């Protein structure tokens, strides 16, 4: 209910409500974007675009499910587009900036803990579709059916992407642990 009220206030131009929505979900959104893109700068752009887009559409926006689910879906959609664009424009050597320890990073940047760095690096070795299925199911707690509906694919495709991705992720993480 709190989210509905925040959206309602946002619709009426409340800056405080918008700031509260941002504070409430920014970590979840950035975590998802980083895990999907393995690039902090691109992840920040995606979350930026999602929030600005959310405000631009606020007048017509109607919250029918969870706000967190909605925002995470927006991040997933934009991250997918960003990923496609990156592949279109890259010439092979233009690798994304990997997530790395942040000791020397300026205060203005995103600081990831060890688990997120490990997750992001491992995720980067999976196919994008598999990454997406795992993160949306685990991190966004979305049902396979919901993911399938949103992406216009079958439930079985989502499940197999998830299963293959998880197997590969497990291998990568075990291999890392052995090293």
């Amino acid at each position, binding site marked *: 209910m709190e989210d509905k009220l925040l959206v*309602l206030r946002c619709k009426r131009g409340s800056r405080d409500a918008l700031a509260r929505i941002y504070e409430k979900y920014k970590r979840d959104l950035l975590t998802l974007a980083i895990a999907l893109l393995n690039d902090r700068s691109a992840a920040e752009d995606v979350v930026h675009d999602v*929030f600005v887009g959310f*405000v631009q559409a606020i*007048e017509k926006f109607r919250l029918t499910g969870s706000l967190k689910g909605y925002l995470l879906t927006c991040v997933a959609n934009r991250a997918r587009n960003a990923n496609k664009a990156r592949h279109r424009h890259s010439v092979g050597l233009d690798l994304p900036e990997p997530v790395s320890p942040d000791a020397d*990073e300026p205060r203005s940047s*995103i600081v990831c803990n060890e688990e997120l760095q490990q997750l992001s690096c491992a995720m980067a070795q999976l196919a994008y579709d598999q990454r997406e299925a795992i993160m949306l199911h685990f991190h966004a707690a979305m049902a396979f059916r919901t993911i399938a509906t949103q992406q216009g694919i079958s439930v079985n495709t989502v499940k197999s992407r998830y299963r293959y991705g998880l197997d590969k992720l*497990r291998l990568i993480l075990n291999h890392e642990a052995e090293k």
Partner: protein
Amino acid sequence: MKSEDDKVKALINEAKIETGSGVDERILADALSELERLRQKRLTRSQQNVWRIIMKSPIVKLAAAAVIIVGLVLLVSILNNSTSPAWAVEQTIEALKRFNAVHISGVVIPPEDSLQHSFDLWARVNEDHTQSDDFRIEIDTGQISWVEGNDTYHYDPNQNAVRIRRGQKPTINPWMGRDLLQRLEQKTDDWQVSYGNDPATGRDRVFVTCSHLHAPGPKSWWFEFDLETKLPVRFKQWDNIQREGNPTFDAQRIVCYEYLPAETFKFEIPENAKIIEEFPEVWDKLNDPNTGMPAEAMTEEEASVEIVRQYWRAVIDGNWELVARLRPIANLETWQAKYSSNPPGEIIEIGKPYQQEGCSIGPVTPVRIKFRDGDIREIKIITKFRDVNGKSSCVIAGTWGKE
């Protein structure tokens, strides 16, 4: 395998992030400035709308025309003082067609309350011009009710609480126009028209009285129309047929508008107000696992089309048991009676489901039905896709607009 999954899940759960002030500043500042830009745009639009309302208001038009009219009225009254003014209900029906919104102020005496309350009501007609869509009412106690989508919001300042009644929408039904006025003229027992003047302004007025014994219950009405504009300006209702005692509803001032901005119907909920959500009984029926159609492995769109097809097939075949299961809120007897004289005979076409603004329950699926008398009607069916006990299913929640 499960423990391995748990390990990955734990890693994802443990993944944490902190943002520096620069990141927050960039994202939030841009979003806030976008919000401000929208607010300014809305403000400008609202101011323009208010200006447009003022300019288009019949009152302003009347005032502007007053100089000419005064001369003409004087001339006419000198030349022919015996001319009796003429008015027919069709003229008012025609005049009302141009107006899409209304502001009514008056007093009401609720049945359970002997105290009189003054109120202000704003309403905007729906696309079909059949009933009100947006609606807002303020009572002198400070209580405010308004409609958003299919829900009613009720703010009580004494409790500083907002009650949201899901799926309940107060409407003016039928809207002021042909449906209401012709029905009153034809169905009431003693429709009488008389002429007079408004003592305050001297303007020519038409007064209509009528009553009905079962409306439901005994009711009588008194209407006042402006003879020149043909528009209603005042209206009273009594809960007896003799118009005895104080009216239970007295609309002392009715102003019709061609347009009212959406902001008129909105209300800013106070920051610390308590929110209480209430679901009507029908909500339980819509979520009852024994109702609806299984929709496993179907998308929402596929399920909507399929349930609309099954529903109309059942109505055509007279399979009322299935009708009741697919559309649990509907009163079966009402539908049986409705379709008995002119039953539907054929599904012509089922359109693509779409999201209808203002309909929060689910998508709207248009369907064209041919009735036995040859009439083809488009009916818009609202469906609700749901997940009950882990199983997907779909149910018909009602219709969007007239059926």
